[in-house]
Every structure is written in structure tokens, then in C-alpha cells.
């Protein structure tokens, strides 16, 4: 569809350029609703975006492009699924409440098995049960599928970013063929603070663009980079003054739209590869970590934090 009006994002097409705008407050946190709408965008882009020749993605939110995953939704989801899983123990499978009604979740309930029963006997009640891991795997599989499709969409894509470009927001920006940043933009992977690694393909995609020393610095310290530094490192293709990224992105999109679409498709497929093995490895690493009590404690701390500086280390 050439025009889409969603809860968290919308797009329209003018002069062969798709204008995607993120508009979920406070800073486009990615939860289940955003995922559903990104899946719609991915399907549209993967199918050729209705013949459009370029796509620009920006944020309408003053705080920035995107602050990453919706951690409150993740935390509440873990609690809800876990509670349902624990209630299900000792009941026949066909009577179990899977907290979501999806068939795969019934299989996941079965996976609770000996581990959960043993934990119950021992008197522990970890939230991150195998059921939760299965749920998170399903979420990651869906978001990777959508992100991969946007990443490899057969047209030129540009992210115009400002302010916060953190975690999943950084991963979303890295899908674009070019990132154009205004000087207010800051980029970070703060996931280690939660006991996690980025889960939406960020590290494998960043590895395409920069050396591993930079990847390790960002991953292992969680620090943020300003736009100028990100430009020097090759993450960002242009830095412009505050408020000018969208304008610059459309100028680049108009330039891209001049070229023969078939040539663009071949050129993009030649210049940009999907790091399949590393993306798969990332999912397994993320899932191995999310079963840790560290994550549960960190999410709980974040959700209930009254610190005015939750984004600082």
C-alpha cells in the first residue's frame, strides 16, 4: 500500500520516494505494535515498495530517532508469560494457559519440563523460564525477518536521524543503506547494562561498516558516540546541522531515484550482504543471556528506576 497510517509509524509515497515517519512517544520504543507495523513496512519494501525508487525513514519525536526496544513491555511480558507458565505446571497440556493463545506457546509450555519442575521443588521461581525464552525467540524471529527484508529491500533506503539512536533504534538505523545524522544524534548499544547483547541484528550489521575494535568499544562499554564521531568511523554518511537531516535525506533520495531501478537493485545486492550466520549467532547469544537472573534484575531495576539519568551508565 502506498499510504499507511499506523499507531506507531506511517508512510506515504511522493515522486517515487517513500516517506516513513516514526511517531510513537516518547521515543519510538519498539514493542509488539511497532513490530506488527514494521512487518507491514517490510512486506511493502520487500515487494518493491509499489515501484518507488527510494525510502526515507525519520522520526517525528523530539527526543530522537528511536530509543530501542520497549523494555517495559518486555519486562511485563516476561512476568505475564512466566506467571502463566508456572500456573500451568501440573495441569494437562491441553488445559494450559499460554498467556497468548498461540499454538507454539503450548509447545513451549511442554519445554518447561524437568527444569521448571525441579526449580519449583527447590522453591525457586525464576521469571525467565523456558517458556519466556520461547516467547522471546518468537519475537526475535519475527523482528529479524522484518529487519532483514527492510535491509535488503530492492531500493535505496536512507535513515535520517537525530537525538537518541540507541539500542534497537541504532539497529533500525543500520538497516538503511545510508544514515544521515544531524549533529544532535547520539548512537549507542547500551544492552550490556541489562545483561544482554543487542538482539535485532545490530552487531552483525555494524560489523559490515566498521572495524571490530569499534564494535567491541560500543558493545563492551555501552558508551554513546556523537554524529561527528560516527561519521569519522564510517557509520554515518553525512552530518548536517540540527533539524536538517530529513531535508538532506530527501535530497539524497531524489538523487538515488534518478538511476535505473534494475541497476540499483544489482548494485545494492553487490555492495550490501546480509550477514546471515552472524545474525543467527546473535539470536542464540541473546537467548542464552536472557535466561540469566541478571537480566530479570536489570529490567526490574530499569522499569522501577526513579533516576533522572536512566540512559547514562
Amino acid at each position, binding site marked *: 500500500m502506498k499510504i499507511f497510517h499506523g499507531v506507531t509509524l506511517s508512510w506515504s509515497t511522493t515522486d517515487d520516494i517513500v516517506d516513513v515517519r516514526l511517531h510513537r512517544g516518547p521515543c519510538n520504543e519498539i514493542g509488539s505494535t511497532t513490530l506488527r507495523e514494521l512487518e507491514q513496512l517490510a512486506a511493502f519494501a520487500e515487494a518493491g515498495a509499489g515501484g518507488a525508487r527510494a525510502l526515507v525513514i525519520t522520526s517525528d519525536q523530539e*527526543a530522537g530517532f528511536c530509543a530501542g526496544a520497549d523494555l517495559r513491555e518486555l519486562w511485563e511480558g516476561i512476568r505475564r508469560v512466566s506467571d502463566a507458565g508456572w500456573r500451568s505446571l501440573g495441569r494437562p497440556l491441553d488445559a494450559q494457559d499460554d498467556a497468548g493463545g498461540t499454538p507454539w506457546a503450548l509447545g513451549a509450555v511442554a519445554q518447561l519440563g524437568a527444569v521448571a519442575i525441579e526449580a519449583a521443588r527447590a522453591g525457586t521461581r525464576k521469571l525467565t523460564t523456558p517458556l519466556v525464552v520461547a516467547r522471546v525467540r518468537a519475537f526475535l524471529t519475527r523482528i529479524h525477518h522484518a529487519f532483514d527484508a527492510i535491509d535488503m529491500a530492492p531500493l535505496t533506503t536512507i535513515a535520517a536521524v537525530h537525538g537518541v539512536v540507541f539500542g534497537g533504534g541504532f539497529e533500525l538505523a543500520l538497516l538503511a543503506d545510508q544514515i544521515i545524522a544531524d*549533529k544532535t544524534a*547520539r548512537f549507542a548499544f547500551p544492552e550490556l547494562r541489562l545483561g544482554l547483547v543487542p538482539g535485532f541484528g545490530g552487531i552483525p550489521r555494524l560489523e559490515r561498516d566498521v572495524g571490530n575494535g569499534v564494535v567491541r568499544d560500543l558493545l563492551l562499554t555501552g558508551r*554513546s558516540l*556523537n554524529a*561527528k564521531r560516527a561519521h569519522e568511523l564510517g557509520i554515518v554518511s553525512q552530518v548536517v546541522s540540527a533539524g536538517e537531516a530529513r531535508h538532506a535525506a530527501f535530497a539524497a533520495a531524489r538523487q538515488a531515484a534518478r538511476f535505473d531501478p534494475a541497476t540499483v537493485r544489482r548494485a545494492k545486492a553487490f555492495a550490501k550482504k546480509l550477514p546471515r550466520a552472524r545474525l543467527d549467532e546473535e539470536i542464540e547469544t541473546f537467548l542464552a543471556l536472557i535466561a540469566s537472573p541478571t537480566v530479570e534484575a536489570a529490567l526490574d531495576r530499569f522499569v522501577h528506576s526513579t533516576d*533522572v539519568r*536512566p540512559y*547514562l*551508565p
Partner: protein
Amino acid sequence: MTHDAIIERLLSLARERFGARAATLSAGDDLYAGLGIDSMQAMSLLTAVEDAFDVEIPDYELAEVRTLASIAGIVARRRGR
């Protein structure tokens, strides 16, 4: 650039960003309590400081920092005094 000149520039940046709230700010005041800024605004200030002094300041160096005087010390070290 002297420490006092760095402080003066930092105060100027704070006033540009936070207006009346920063009018009476001094170098030793708590930025969060004094200006009522949140983490997003702190990041915006960090970006402005990096830009103004042409330095890179990792966020973790700011973990315990709450005053412009402390930021001035970091800027001075990063600039090589």
C-alpha cells in the same frame, strides 16, 4: 584555554540550552537538581560540550559527574590542558 574560560563557556552552553533555569547556575551547582534536567537533556548537553571543545567524552566518564566544574576538569584533561 584556562579552567575559568572552560567554565565560562560551559555556563554559556547551559544558558543557551536551558534558558532562565540556568540564569543563576554556578560551576559547583548540581546540574540535575539545579536545572531539573533529565538524561535526554544531559545527553544533549554532552553533545554540545563535545562540539564546542572538539573533544570526545565517553558517557562513563560522566557517571559520577553532577557539576559544570567537574565537566570542565574532564574537558581540560581531554584537551591536554
